[in-house]
């Protein structure tokens, strides 16, 4: 008997050295396969990480400089003879002096400043010297004068934006060699800028205007900011949140808890899953047809953008909410029903609060997706040059506005190279918002999620 089992087992066990410590052929193969798979996995992760680092590095290296801005401090004499010819300080008459009328004042001020500091550059006339200052400056002056009528005739210190090329000089974008070839800036102007910097007139400071100022035209990239875009994006997110959260949650509660299981609900379910995968541009076409052409809502308005993005976000929220509701164990419902709660009470008092972290996480991820969306906005007129801030809500929802991703898209199309920096800066701002939203989602999930 023992003999028989011995032969049997001898036949079954592979003919090897017999020690567990010496690996046989097949075990070696299996181990090698595992090691290979691990290495492949590591390589895959490395590729991902490298791509991310490359992307971030290029955005940061291009864009971080947009948070710094070069300014020139000058004392400008608000010449009454030029600004208020009749001398009666009538605001209506002073408003007739256009920004073109303020140009000579700046020229004069720079000339005076150079004389006072003893700076003179060969081959640089007063007009070229004044070109160091942004074309935005006359508008700044005019706004100041119109709000301070009594300042006319006095000399007021201003900190004006330096022009885009001068700004680029201190950010490494413009060099003496490139200025030689550049039609918009000359080496003499750069020399003057250096002299001014030595004299402490030209300074670099943190660029708050980048977050608050509106867009600017192609001739003054230094003045372009994200103010309108941030407001527009905020308005749209508000609309998306206010509309998609209640609608999405109500729809999922009904589908998950009340709806009978039949062909119709199956069909709805399949459609929701499909909608989540529909390319976003399709929602844009829908928005144009329904909200603008049919309902007559205005073009370029956050309300239309918000409605379109709501439609786009709804499937995401419904799917996340249903998953969160499903994750609440049936015993909770049964216990609530068992002590006499109605179905609705059991859901609103017990199931929904437990599912809330999952719902909020899904909503925030949906919102983050909507925040970064450009394609549908293209069709409803939000990819536009907008300089006016939208009013406070709710009227502001109907004013034209831009949005963050749209602003990035817009700036990458401009001719002046300074806009490349601005676009990258806008991407950084957008990324910071996205990371913050995702962080909130993660924190909510970590803190409030329960496992059963």
């Amino acid at each position, binding site marked *: 008997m023992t003999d028989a089992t011995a032969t049997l087992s001898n036949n079954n066990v592979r003919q090897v050295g017999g020690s567990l410590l010496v690996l046989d052929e097949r075990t070696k193969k299996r181990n090698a396969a595992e090691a290979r798979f691990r290495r492949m996995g590591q390589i895959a992760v490395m590729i991902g990480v490298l791509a991310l680092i490359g992307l971030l590095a290029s955005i940061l290296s291009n864009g971080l400089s947009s948070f710094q801005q070069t300014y020139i401090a000058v004392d400008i004499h608000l010449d009454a003879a030029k600004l208020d010819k009749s001398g009666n300080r009538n605001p209506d008459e002073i408003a007739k002096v256009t920004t073109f009328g303020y140009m000579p004042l700046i020229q004069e001020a720079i000339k005076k400043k150079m004389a006072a500091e003893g700076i003179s550059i060969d081959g640089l006339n007063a007009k070229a010297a004044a070109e160091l200052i942004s074309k935005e400056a006359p508008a700044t002056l005019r706004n100041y004068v119109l709000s301070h009528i009594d300042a006319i005739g006095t000399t007021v210190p201003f900190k004006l934006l330096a022009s885009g090329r001068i700004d680029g000089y201190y950010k490494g974008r413009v060099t003496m060699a490139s200025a030689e070839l550049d039609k918009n800036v000359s080496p003499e102007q750069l020399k003057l800028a250096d002299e001014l910097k030595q004299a402490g007139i030209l300074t670099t400071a943190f660029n708050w205007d980048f977050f608050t100022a509106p867009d600017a035209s192609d001739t003054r990239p230094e003045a372009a900011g994200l103010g309108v875009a941030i407001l527009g994006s905020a308005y749209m997110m508000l609309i998306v949140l206010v509309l998609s959260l209640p609608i999405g949650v109500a729809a999922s509660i009904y589908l998950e808890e009340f709806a009978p299981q039949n062909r119709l609900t199956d069909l709805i379910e399949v459609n929701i899953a499909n909608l989540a995968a529909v390319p976003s541009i399709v929602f844009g076409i829908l928005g144009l047809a329904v909200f603008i052409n049919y309902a007559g*809502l205005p073009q370029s308005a956050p309300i239309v953008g918000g409605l379109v993005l709501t439609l786009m976000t709804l499937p995401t929220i419904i799917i996340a909410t249903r998953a969160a509701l499903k994750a609440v164990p049936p015993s909770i419902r049964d216990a609530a029903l068992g002590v006499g709660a109605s179905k609705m009470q059991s859901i609103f008092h017990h199931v929904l609060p437990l599912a809330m972290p999952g719902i909020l996480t899904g909503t925030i991820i949906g919102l983050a997706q909507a925040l970064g969306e450009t394609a549908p906005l293209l069709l409803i007129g939000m990819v536009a040059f907008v300089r006016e801030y939208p009013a406070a809500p709710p009227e502001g929802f109907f004013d034209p506005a831009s949005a963050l991703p749209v602003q990035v898209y817009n700036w990458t199309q401009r001719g002046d190279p300074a806009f490349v920096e601005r676009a990258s800066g806008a991407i950084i701002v957008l990324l910071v918002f996205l990371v913050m939203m995702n962080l909130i989602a993660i924190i909510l999930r970590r803190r409030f999620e329960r496992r059963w």
Partner: protein
Amino acid sequence: MNALKITIAALAASAAFAGAAVARDNIQIKGSSTVLPYASIVAEAFGENFDFPTPVVEGGGSGAGRKALCEGVGENTIDIANSSSRIKQSDIDTCKANGVNEIQEVRIGYDGIVFASDINGPSFAFTPADWHKALAAKVVVDGKLVDNPYKKWNEINSDFADQDILAFVPGTKHGTREVFDEKVIVAGCEEDGTLEALKAENNGDEKAAEKACMQLRTDGVSVDIDGDYTETLARIDANKNGIGVFGLSFYENNTDKLQVATMSGVTPSTETIASGEYPVSRPLYFYVKNAHLDVIPGLQEYVEFFVSDDMAGPNGPLAAYGLVSDPELAKTQEAVKNRTPMGPLN
């Protein structure tokens, strides 16, 4: 909690529809991306100097702008379409069908189309015939019409550098392409005699021959750029052999990276384009919906401001940015003041 949110949503929705009745007080403009920078410069200055809000300017292309203009009359349609090519009869017909009867045509100036390559590469002095010979699908070699055999620029003209032919031309949706086809390729086709050969092949049909002229080679030597000039610039940056087609203003903003080629011996500049010496240029337009003139506040003022000497004149900011100012600007100013609608196309 949920009930509260639903109430908020209902409030927002009702506010939405109450607000929809508010009249639009800003001007809306859409169209050509070539005109866009000029329009935004004017819009910005308009917003600064007038009591009206800054107009909203959208890109999207000349065709898209004219289509939007012709969608109808009313506050949710645009007021002005920017266009880098002249309006077409089909647009005017659509306009008529949708009740847009009076349109003003405003010519703001001229735009040059330039050929530029990497600043450190060799320089070129082209003629339209060179471009046709380099890019056409079919060319005449030894009296016979054959598929384009040329690979290097010095095969086209022995004065040129020994450099691979590689051209970045605007895609067909661009207004610039139309001008490129018409003023460079077809002109060159005629110059080097290919047109005659094609005409013979098409039994004397001139239209068909011209169309055949515009066929560019598809072996990767001519690359259509569907994006804008920034993309063309990036392509040249990546491939130093490339020669790109740009608008004059874009080139003037990037003179530190690009060198411009002459065309028929003329260097493109605002002066040579204004005088008509430089051959590859086109007028830029915008089209105003007259029915909106007294409805949208500031529209008439904006139109007048755009063509004023302060803006569109030879010393104005538009000219500084690269627009070739129109010698007949005074006529346009007069027409704009009188709101003269455009007549039938000639």
